[in-house]
């Protein structure tokens, strides 16, 4: 009797979108759950990470006719914007002993 061949492990657009949804939801949870507003700021990069994963995944799997570089470009933009927003938020909050 011939043994059934094992299918190779793969990941598709649905798996990527699940991970993106998880990151966005965890970021939203962090933003609303933390009592300290500077700690709640950690939710912003998480949500941006989810959006970046969705962009790169869609560019990789769905926009096969177009250039993949667009999704990558948006992911880069989102990562830079996330770091900039953290710096801006912590800068607005200020440092202890500075006022």
């Amino acid at each position, binding site marked *: 009797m011939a043994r059934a061949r094992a299918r*190779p492990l793969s990941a598709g657009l649905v798996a990527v979108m699940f991970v993106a949804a998880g990151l966005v939801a965890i970021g*939203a949870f962090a933003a609303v759950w933390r009592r300290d507003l500077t700690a709640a700021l950690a939710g912003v990069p998480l949500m941006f990470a989810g959006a970046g994963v969705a962009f790169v995944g869609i560019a990789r799997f769905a926009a096969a006719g177009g250039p993949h570089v667009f999704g990558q470009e948006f992911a880069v933009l989102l990562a830079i914007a996330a770091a900039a927003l953290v710096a801006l938020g*912590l800068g607005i909050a200020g440092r202890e002993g500075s006022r």
Partner: protein
Amino acid sequence: MDSLHAIGFYVSSGISLAGGLGAALLPSRGPRAAALGITGVGLAGIYTALSAGFAAAVALLCYGGAAWLFANPRNRPLEDVQHPNWRQVGSIGAGTLLALLAYSAFRGDFSPATFYGGAFDVAAVGRLILAHDAIATEAVAVLVLVALVGATAMWRVRERGR
């Protein structure tokens, strides 16, 4: 995607989600910042598995920088004065958001409508945003960036006026 990349994707996804949960739930500043850095490492792994190497390098740099900023012990804590019930309502809202996003990711064809490119699903939206209307999407991104910079500049001017 071959098996090696798929394994890398799933492992990196686990690392990234675990780091995100740590950043959301850990009580002290140092471990929370480290968790955010771990999220960046996982994110870079996801991008690498999806053939976006440059984005992986930038994500590693940016999330490492953000973690370093969060780890600074001199950051001023700002205690929120909102009612505790709002936190619970917000958590339920985050759970609902996860359910909605997961449902739309699973369904894919979330709308029965069709357009000139065929069925209207996640792949069609991706083609529209990243191929057909890429320039318009770029223009919106620049507009949002200018709005953010303008809002920050206005806030600085108002603060100096006080």
